[in-house]
């Protein structure tokens, strides 16, 4: 189905099932432990052997030699695969660094071997007997030091490293009110609960991988490319994923090493990446240095806005596009953005939840708070005065829907924003300095082709098959809701099967594009199935109603299952997009409000209340959408207050490589969280009229906290995370 004109009324608009708060249909499987995660396929194939990964002990250099003799002689060892004996390996389209290193080493903990043994314990013990001698080389590990030498990265489509509109330098210089400030965000880890894990089994030259992956088609292709197999010889199965946050968008070493280990051992092999490797072996959100300049007239109208961002990556790696939102969020005739990329020998930087906007908004929304203060304007009012209903770089191009101001005003009212004292450091409650902060939320809405197959059987059950994944987001449920709405069925009559490369290719889970695109693909397949049903039952497809398990037209009503009485009816289609995203800018908007306390003695920061207001198209399932947003808000608290991969700049690795050292919020850190979804449909986005929401909930949260900390203490911290040591020396006497 080609989607190239705005959506009109369609069966989704009935909202019998779509739009209702619905519990996860896969919830019982998960709560009873029956959902099979990658490491838990106990009943397929023959008994697997276990692989244990050996990570490089240096960040850059070469392996001088590897002595496997002791490891090979260890009990239970069946095979040890290294780059030396693995045969020729390619590199996936989505990988920057090789997944099996050697002899060249690209980063710390890059896999250099996998040891396969009968038991996990034997593999682990033997892995520690692998003797690798390295010849270390000098590397670059310090972004701040690499800033001056950072280069202009190549552009990709609309994402050009430099953008310029009007005369930014002139307008900024002439602006009566100016801000020129630099912010930093640290390297961050996805730190999902389920580590990368895979089980591989070969049948001749055909490979099956049970894995944990967000993007089945990308990864199937990259498995084939890495192992030199035809794509059709690779099957990926990934129905349940214990968190990904972008860390599982790509093929990673667990899957490659399971496949290589299985081939070498001639047995199915399981590999779960050990937790201590999770931080340096994999990808992470790269650190940024961001300089923001804003010039405004005294009436609060922005006349010049400039945003430059420096990040680092391995050779061939990409920059963190932290300036993305600044091209679109606020008005201003004179604008510029610039991305620069330093070559660093740290582990590969790549996508993590809301790449670009998450760190970009961390900086921009502090800058807006600072600017509001200079203008003596309320932060909500300052943002509202600079709202734009058109793409400010291309004023002929409107936003499809943009309710930023409504989000902020609704949030301000519901949160009690008017009680905020604009003068910082003035509200004291016992040992706490109390402050409020807010930030806009912004994340683009991405359109991706997405396919699905739907099967109708004689019992009237519809089965949806698509390689879409559910990374804890609720894909199973919204896809079931979509099919149920389209086919006039209760939710119980829909079966959803996901995460299998033998199913039609979907958008996958990433960039908050999963929900809108994958359900639109299901919509398209259901439209086809409705036509097939109508034809089979002898209806004129134009005026057939599907409801309550019946197909009806005029006085005639037939049970849906009857269309499949002699054989299953199967329909497959995908949603493909025209140029609506070119003529209209599609973005999602929101506002975050935070109240927190800062301990006057210790500068410990404890959040008290949070509110997110989102306007992001139709909310398909308010329950799972809320769950996404409060999860994102929690992640934003982590980004603001504690998350930082600490770089040892001498030897080039992230030192805090476990969940004790890389702190993310615990329950005690998270107070009451409220979410409000503004009523919105966006007919430009898809037949579902929905947009993404899972990343919007993160973008801006950390800045809202930073602004609240400033409001509480009068201390402006521009370097994340805002830990107590950055406040302590400027705190008032207790």
């Amino acid at each position, binding site marked *: 189905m080609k989607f190239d004109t705005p959506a009109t009324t369609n069966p989704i608009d009935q909202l019998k099932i779509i739009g209702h708060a619905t519990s996860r249909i896969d919830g019982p499987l998960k709560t009873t432990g029956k959902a099979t995660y990658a490491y838990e396929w106990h009943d397929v194939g023959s008994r697997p052997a276990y692989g244990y990964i050996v990570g490089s002990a240096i960040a850059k250099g070469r392996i001088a030699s590897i002595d496997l003799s002791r490891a090979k002689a260890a009990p239970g060892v069946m095979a040890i695969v290294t780059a030396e004996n693995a045969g020729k390996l390619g590199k996936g389209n989505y990988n920057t660094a090789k997944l099996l290193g050697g002899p060249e080493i690209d980063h710390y903990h890059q896999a250099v071997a996998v040891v396969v043994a009968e038991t996990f314990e034997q593999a682990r013990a033997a892995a520690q007997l692998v003797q690798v001698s390295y010849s270390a080389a000098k590397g670059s590990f310090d972004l701040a030091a690499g800033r001056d030498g950072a280069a202009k990265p190549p552009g990709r489509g609309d994402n050009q490293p430099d953008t310029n509109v009007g005369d930014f330098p002139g307008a900024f210089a002439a602006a009566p009110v100016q801000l020129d400030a630099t912010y930093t965000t640290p390297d961050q880890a996805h730190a999902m609960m389920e580590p990368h894990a895979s089980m591989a089994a070969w049948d001749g030259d055909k490979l099956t991988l049970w894995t944990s992956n967000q993007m089945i088609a990308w990864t199937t292709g990259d498995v084939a490319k890495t192992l030199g197999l035809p794509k059709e010889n690779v099957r990926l199965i990934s129905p349940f994923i214990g968190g990904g946050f972008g860390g599982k968008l790509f093929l990673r070493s667990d899957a490659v090493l399971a496949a290589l280990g299985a081939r070498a051992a001639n047995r199915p092999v399981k590999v779960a990446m050990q937790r201590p490797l999770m931080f340096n072996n994999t990808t992470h959100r790269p650190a940024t240095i961001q300089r923001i300049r804003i010039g405004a007239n005294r009436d609060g109208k922005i006349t010049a806005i400039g945003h430059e961002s420096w990040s680092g990556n391995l050779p061939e790696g990409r920059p963190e596009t932290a300036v993305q939102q600044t091209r679109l969020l606020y008005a201003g005739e004179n604008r510029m953005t610039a991305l620069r990329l330093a070559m660093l020998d740290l582990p590969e930087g790549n996508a993590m939840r809301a790449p670009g906007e998450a760190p970009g908004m961390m900086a921009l929304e502090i800058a807006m708070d600072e600017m509001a203060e200079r203008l003596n304007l309320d932060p909500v009012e300052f943002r509202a005065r600079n709202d734009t209903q058109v793409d400010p770089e291309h004023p002929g191009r409107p936003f499809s829907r943009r309710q930023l101001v409504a989000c902020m005003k609704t949030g301000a009212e519901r949160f009690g924003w008017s009680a905020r004292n604009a003068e910082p450091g003035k509200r004291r409650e016992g040992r706490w300095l109390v402050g409020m902060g807010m930030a806009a939320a912004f994340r683009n809405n991405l359109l991706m082709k997405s396919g699905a197959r739907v099967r109708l059987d004689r019992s009237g059950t519809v089965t949806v098959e698509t390689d879409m994944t559910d990374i804890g987001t609720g894909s199973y449920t919204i896809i079931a809701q979509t099919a149920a709405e389209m086919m006039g069925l209760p939710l119980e009559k829909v079966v959803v099967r996901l995460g299998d490369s033998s199913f039609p290719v979907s958008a996958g889970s990433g960039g908050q594009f999963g929900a809108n695109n994958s359900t639109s693909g299901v919509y398209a397949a259901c439209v086809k199935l409705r036509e097939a049903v109508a034809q089979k039952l002898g209806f004129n497809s134009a005026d057939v109603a599907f409801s309550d398990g019946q197909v009806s037209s005029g006085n005639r009503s037939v049970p849906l299952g009857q269309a499949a009485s002699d054989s299953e009816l199967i329909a497959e289609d995908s949603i493909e997009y025209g140029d609506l995203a070119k003529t209209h800018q599609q973005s999602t908007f929101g506002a975050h409000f935070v109240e927190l306390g800062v301990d006057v003695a210790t500068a410990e920061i404890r959040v008290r209340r949070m509110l997110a207001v989102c306007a992001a198209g139709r909310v398909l399932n308010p329950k799972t959408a809320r769950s996404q947003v409060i999860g994102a808000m929690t992640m934003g608290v982590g980004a603001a207050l504690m998350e930082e991969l600490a770089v040892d700049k001498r030897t080039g690795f992230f030192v*805090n490589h476990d969940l004790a050292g890389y702190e993310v919020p615990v329950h005690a850190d998270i107070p009451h969280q409220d979410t409000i979804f503004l009523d919105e449909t966006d007919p430009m986005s898809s037949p579902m009229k929905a947009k993404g929401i899972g990343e919007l909930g993160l973008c801006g949260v950390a800045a809202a906290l930073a602004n609240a900390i400033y409001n509480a203490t009068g201390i402006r911290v521009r370097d994340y995370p805002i830990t107590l040591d950055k406040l302590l020396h400027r705190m008032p006497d207790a």
Partner: protein
Amino acid sequence: MRSFTYEKAHSPAAAASAAVRTSNAKFIAGGTNLLDLMKLEIETPSHLIDVNGLGFDKIEPTPEGGLRIGALVRNTALAADERVRRDYGLLSRALLAGASGQLRNKATTAGNLLQRTRCPYFYDTNQPCNKRSPGSGCAAIGGITRQHAVIGASDACIATHPSDMAIAMRALDATVQTARPDGTTRNIPIADLHRLPGNTPHLETTLGAGELITSVTLPKPLGGTHVYRKVRDRASYAFALVSVGAIVQRDGTGRVAVGGIAHKPWRVEAAEAEMPRGAKAVAARLLDGAKPTRDNSFKLALVERTLAAVLTEAKG
């Protein structure tokens, strides 16, 4: 993890003598620290002596009016004990500030005292560490040191002791009872149990080879107000940046021990004489000779400010 042999000990003397009979043996009780370290081959014992069956799981009054806490009393049970909550509130609060409910259910009193540092370089076997591999060097010095010691450290090691419970024990002047391989027992004042790193950071306590902690005794209650304040980056399940345990009497005198800043629970009795003069005076004595790094110099101010807050809280 290396393979190891295992035995269940039936008496403290047997456990202690087994520990010297077998080379490279370790006692295991709760295992919350040791097993993790064994999986990473930071600890590589070849023999484990399980002391869980020795029955040291009671909390009993002593003739002197104190409490004798069996070495195997779980942290949860100790924190919840009515007598501990009433008379040694500092200990109960310190315990509950540590780890998680699940870990406290398993972790023992003696094991808590003997837990090893959380220095991230100690945890990475690719990195030199004098504590893990004597003589190899210290990767933490000059590295990421925000969590590390600011006082009592050496050129060989700047690790901290991670225990909350030990801070309370130190403030309370607990004594540690042990059984030795030769069948004798002894009392070790808690102040003498943990060592500073010096040139031998791998030697963390003064326990002899095979010496087994059998109980920890608290002297009779001190009265006063008991406050334990743990400062950390998140609200729970994190090691202290700084923690302050204090017992403050009505006249302003008292005791104070500090965690998160040294290789052992940090208490300077001479500093306590300054308590009536306030936190600044106490902190100055307590931290006399501190040598922080750039990353952790904030701990000096943090100790003083936290102590001030604790003294204010104690005044009620």
